[in-house]
């Protein structure tokens, strides 16, 4: 177990190294820090002097090492626009995005399992065919279209849900303010979570359905029937557990990917999270903030994947984590 953990941590570090290289390359090539610092009116000699002083004429390796060293100490540069450390800016926006992703994840889990299981058990009913048809459409409709359509119907036409912002928040600790403590907060997070969930939901339904159908054909399911086990137990104990094992791995990756999809969702719903912030940073060519965003998102991605792999190892009895480390 410990050996496996160490192995996974090393893999995660390697991935973070690559991400930081990419981040640094962007930093190095996008925008001119001098223009941001001193403006247009300074002579070329002064600029060269400043470049030397800032270390911008050092070799790529030296500059990267300085960048990585700072990053390890939590210094990802200073945002040009906010005049604050980029990491602080992002961390303030992080809770909003995380709550949105959490809401979407809950919706995905809560819907895809029962729907996937139902369509696998009864593949030929009208309801199943309808669901599968909708899921094909769902896969191909872009998220901003879903989002705009939802705003139009549920906010503009019916006025059931607010269409932008986070509403009433309750402070938890540090920069974390939560949507889940007030009715108004719940109302505000509804539409954005559903919109975000709608990207992954069809994929999950189809994945669970396909896995479940395969498992239902297996010998052990036939054997469970031959033992006279009740149908609900066959479906939800014998079949579902085997179905979800491969889904956990894929699902973990997809939930990591969802953080990236928040850019569009947050922008449409004016959700004050880091995706919305990222798009603004791109518009303002706020390079340190862009790079910091990439690194933070990459970090979240790596951490979720590692955790998902560990969970997989813990719930699957045939995976021996102790042996996998060797």
């Amino acid at each position, binding site marked *: 177990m410990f050996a496996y953990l160490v192995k996974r941590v090393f893999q995660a570090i390697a991935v973070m190294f690559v991400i930081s290289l990419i981040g640094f390359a962007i930093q190095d090539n996008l925008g001119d820090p001098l223009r941001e610092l001193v403006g247009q009116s300074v002579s070329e000699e002064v600029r060269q002097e400043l470049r030397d002083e800032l270390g911008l004429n050092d070799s790529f390796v030296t500059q990267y090492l300085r960048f990585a060293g700072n990053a390890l100490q939590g210094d990802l540069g200073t945002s040009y626009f906010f005049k604050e450390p980029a990491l602080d800016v992002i961390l303030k926006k992080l809770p909003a995005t995380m709550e949105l992703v959490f809401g979407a994840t809950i919706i995905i889990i809560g819907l895809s399992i029962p729907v996937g299981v139902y369509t696998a058990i009864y593949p030929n009913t009208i309801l199943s065919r309808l669901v599968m048809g909708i899921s094909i459409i769902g896969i191909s409709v872009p998220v901003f279209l879903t989002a705009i359509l939802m705003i139009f119907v549920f906010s503009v036409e019916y006025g059931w849900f607010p269409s932008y912002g986070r509403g009433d928040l309750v402070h938890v600790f540090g920069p974390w303010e939560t949507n889940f403590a007030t009715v108004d907060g719940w109302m505000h997070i509804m539409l954005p979570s559903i919109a975000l969930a709608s990207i992954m939901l069809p994929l999950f339904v189809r994945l669970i359905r396909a896995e479940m159908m395969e498992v239902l054909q297996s010998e*052990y399911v036939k054997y469970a*029937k031959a033992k*006279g*086990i009740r*149908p609900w137990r066959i479906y939800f104990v014998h079949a579902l557990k085997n179905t979800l094992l491969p889904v956990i791995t894929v699902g973990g990756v997809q939930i990591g990917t969802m953080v990236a999809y928040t850019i569009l969702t947050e922008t449409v719903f004016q959700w004050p999270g880091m995706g919305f912030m990222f798009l603004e940073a791109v518009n303002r060519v706020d390079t340190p903030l862009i790079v910091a965003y990439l690194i933070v998102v990459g970090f979240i991605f790596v951490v979720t994947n590692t955790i998902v792999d560990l969970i997989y190892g813990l719930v699957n009895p045939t995976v021996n984590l102790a042996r996998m480390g060797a």
Partner: protein
Amino acid sequence: MSLLSVRDLCVKFAMRDNTVTALNQISFDLAKGERLGIVGESGAGKSITGFALMNLLSRPGFVDSGNILFQGDDIAQMSDAQMRRIRGNRMAMIFQDPMVTLNPVLTIGQQMVETLMAHRKLSKSEAEQIAIVKLREVYIPSPAERLKQYPHELSGGMRQRIIIAIALLLDPQLIIADEPTTALDVTIQADIMELLLELCETNKVGLILITHDLGVVSQMTERTLVMYAGRIIEAGRTREIINDPQHPYTQGLINALPQQTAPGQRLKQIPGNMPSLTAIPSGCPFAPRCEYVQDHCRTDAPETVKYTHVEVACHEVNRLHSDKAEEMTR
């Protein structure tokens, strides 16, 4: 009254635009505690017979006509709920490959306890006690610890013993074992068969043993059905079928046994293959491969007749027999 009485059972498969017949007019009886072997080449319909008895035919297979009377109830007519109460309880099944039969994510204990609790009102600890007793009966060492283990932690032979123990959990009247040792190491095949025989004898459980190994059938069973292309072509006491087979197909099977061939010589295989379900010849299905074939064999399906001590479906059985008698006197 017999334990099981199958009458004119026909099983069909619904294909895209027609149906094919997988079992054709199968009839046989099994007395309480009797052991019956079903033999035949691959594709003869042995497994289909076993699953039909459990009402577990998977689509597109279905029982088209006939009756399966088990202790007086017709299984072919039962609802799913009624049938569930019989499966694993009064009638149990042992599958072919123990490596894929047990659920990989449930412990042995969970898979035993759930079987008991599906049929009886028991607490979990009472069920575990019964499970331990049954594991001891199949000679599993330290049974209490096994309950906590997952299938992948156990060998194939051990798993098949556990599956036998599960079959015995609710003291059934009938066990259907479909090639219970073919997936196992040769060295433990005999052990498993011996165990099965011992348990069936001591518990007076009826056994239907599906196999293509005539040697196993002769050790294990009292009566034998020989199947070919979805039909029973010969049925009778095992000893008599092995020592004095009447149907040319059965004779061919016995001549093909390694014991019948001198070392170093090629096995005497029956030439040709069994027809596929979509191309079963009219008349006698064995006619294209039969060395005694006559014109009427190709056109008329043979009736099952009682001949000496067995029942056999062959037009030429009389002639065959007189030939053989001639051979003996010569």
